[in-house]
């Protein structure tokens, strides 16, 4: 047996022993997701057991090095773990912006001291992070952002406003783009890290069309951000005034993560589930709707192959560096189509907004939430701009 096959066997055995049955059910809503952080509580004993087992094994961040809280898995091993988790439907033991976004940026740009501290905190689910990029006047044109940090020697005094900051009211720390030089648009931004409980930070939740309010306006009123948190642990990532490089690199990972909503490892056809569902309610699926589903399933299943190829190529250092933009564009458009079809198949039942049988109107709320997929992390139009400029190298500014 090859090493990889051995690893697969070990992984199966480990998952069998450590992933409770309840944690092998699909995630139904945000309550089923464990986000970690100072104020985190577990929804169930099973969620706690699964998180702790994974944390102790380094499986909250399997491919990060062991000294930073990961398991140090190679790319093929990490793929095997993903496949084995998908096979039993295991939920992610820990989800967080730290894992998807800040972690990769620190691995690339962080100092040893920052990695030791922040990566371990992320891997162990101790600190929950939020992302302070967008501002009221700066969305797609992010680099025009204005939140300003005045240099006070060993610290900055930060003033300004962020918006659409997901989970800002629940986060412990923020990674935040702050202008530190007003003369230079691109080379005047610093990527700062600071505590959300500090003086002058306040948040105000925004209600979404889905009826939930997972994101906020975030205000900074004379917030003091230290330049250092101790030896080899600066309060910013990369260099001062060169935060845009870090921001862009992080966006690549964010886009990759969001593209996964299109069904990275998901391999079941939507039509299968919808037919089963319709059978239960005594409904029939019209022939033309069935056709739409079939054409959708072709696109969605083809995209699972794309997601696999993309991961394999990225891990092997092949593939165009701008590919995450393409993955994000396609993955989010597919996810929106999926939910449109689910709404059509669900009929009037999918319109119910509150009842217990519909788990509080899950279908329409999820459907509405997916509309943000092609906006958050860079809109579809911006993704198409990037593909045409960076991959196809089409002319023009």
């Amino acid at each position, binding site marked *: 047996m090859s090493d990889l096959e051995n690893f697969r066997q070990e992984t199966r055995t480990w998952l069998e022993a450590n992933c409770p049955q309840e944690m092998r059910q699909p995630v139904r809503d945000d309550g089923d997701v464990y986000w970690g952080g100072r104020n985190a509580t577990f929804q169930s004993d099973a969620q706690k057991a699964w998180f702790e087992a994974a944390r102790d094994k380094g499986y909250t961040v399997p491919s990060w090095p062991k000294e930073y809280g990961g398991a140090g898995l190679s790319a093929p091993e990490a793929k095997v773990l993903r496949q084995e988790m998908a096979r039993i439907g295991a939920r992610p033991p820990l989800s967080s912006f730290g894992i998807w976004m800040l972690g990769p940026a620190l691995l690339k740009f962080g100092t040893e001291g920052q990695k030791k501290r922040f990566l371990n905190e992320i891997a162990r689910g101790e600190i929950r992070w939020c992302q302070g990029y967008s501002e009221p006047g700066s969305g797609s044109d992010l680099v025009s952002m204005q939140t300003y940090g005045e240099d006070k020697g060993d610290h900055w005094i930060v003033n300004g406003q962020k918006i659409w900051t997901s989970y800002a009211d629940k986060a412990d720390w923020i990674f935040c783009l702050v202008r530190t030089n007003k003369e230079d648009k691109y080379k005047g931004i610093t990527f700062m890290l600071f505590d959300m409980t500090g003086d002058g930070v306040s948040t105000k939740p925004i209600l979404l069309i889905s009826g939930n309010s997972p994101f906020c306006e975030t205000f900074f009123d004379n917030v003091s951000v230290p330049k250092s948190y101790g030896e080899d642990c600066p309060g910013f990532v990369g260099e001062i005034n060169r935060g845009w490089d870090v921001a862009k690199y992080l966006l690549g990972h964010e886009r990759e993560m969001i593209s996964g909503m299109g069904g990275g490892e998901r391999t079941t056809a939507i039509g299968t589930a919808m037919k089963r569902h319709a059978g239960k309610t005594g409904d029939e699926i019209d022939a033309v709707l069935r056709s739409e589903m079939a054409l959708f399933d072709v696109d969605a299943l083809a995209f699972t192959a794309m997601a696999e*190829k993309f991961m394999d190529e990225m891990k092997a250092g092949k593939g165009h560096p701008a590919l995450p933009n393409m993955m994000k564009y396609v993955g989010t458009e597919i996810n929106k189509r999926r939910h449109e079809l689910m709404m059509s198949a669900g009929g009037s039942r999918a319109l119910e907004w509150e009842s217990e049988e519909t788990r509080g109107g899950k279908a329409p709320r999820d459907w509405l939430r997916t509309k943000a997929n092609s906006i958050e992390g860079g809109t579809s139009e911006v993704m198409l701009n990037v593909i*045409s400029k960076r991959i196809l190298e089409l002319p023009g500014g």
Partner: protein
Amino acid sequence: MPLFHTEDQAMLADSASGFMAEEGNINKQLRHWRDRDCPDGFGHALWKQMAEMGFTGMLVAEDDGGLGMGHVEAGIVLEEIGRNLTPSPFLTSSVLAATALGHGSSDLKGRYLPGLIEGDSVFAVAIDETAKHRPSRISTKAEKSGNGFKLSGSKSFVIQGASSDMIVVAARTSGSDEDEDGITLFAVPKDASGMHQDPVRLVDSAMASHIKFDGVELDGDAVIGEVDGGREILNAMLAAGRVGVAAEGVGVAQGAMDMTVDYLKQRKQFGKLIGEFQSLQHRAAHLYSEVEIARAVTIKAQQLLDEGAPSADLMTSVAKSKVAKAAGLAVKEGVQMHGGIGMTDEYDIGLYMKRDRALAEFLGDAYFHANRVAELSGY
């Protein structure tokens, strides 16, 4: 296995792309034979060269004198064929017929495979009996007669039928038209008496035959595999052919897209390169995404087929359907973005459109395979 080419495969891709661009290009092959009204629609000299390159026997097992390669490798050659719109018997002979013959007796293999490997023989496959692909229904009959069989019925649109030295024919030896069982495959030599071919030219300049079998007498040793056991071989042949068409379609899509993106960087209107207009940029970027996905699902299907994985069947239909859509988009956008010049015969983009149309239809169109995806998924 990672979803990209191994080093060996990348080397093969290099040599196949160089060779096809040099010898199989549009002016040297497609236009050359089309403008001469060639009754084959392809050149035998190129077929011989492809044999020298080792392409013709790629899918033939090593024990049978071939290279024993897989669908990923065959797909590499097919993608270059697609990119250059190279007319050749590769798909019908080296992929479809070779897959069927792989299930044949050593006698049949000995009779046909050396000619294929040497590039001296050309084979065709006769499955469909109507204008749409429908392999579930086979009514052409082969009745027992002495030690052999008597074949009667008809097949339609047999690609390169009239140019072939042998045709693999799917016929019914028992049961009724729609039965799964009761199919037998026969290797029918070109000079079989009672076989009448009526060749027609298709939109992409390829030749296809309508074939009538008027009590064609066949020896028992013309049977490929077992009598009444042909469905499984037919399915293997179809799977190989479908991923093959998908790979060729990816080449067609890539070729059309590359031409178009180049054009966007050259043509000026309103004092600008037309590639500066965002409406065209977004459509080009969308097209790029679709072509990349088509490529990914094709290599996935090839790998699954090479591994003999049960999910190969589903992914093959996903690939065939997806590629048909993506390549269709590539040629339509290609012609549109070329403006008036895209409508001219002199410009190659229209040739891509024609080839795509024929490939999309061959072995089941996007709708046939989407329907199959639904059926295989239980709805």
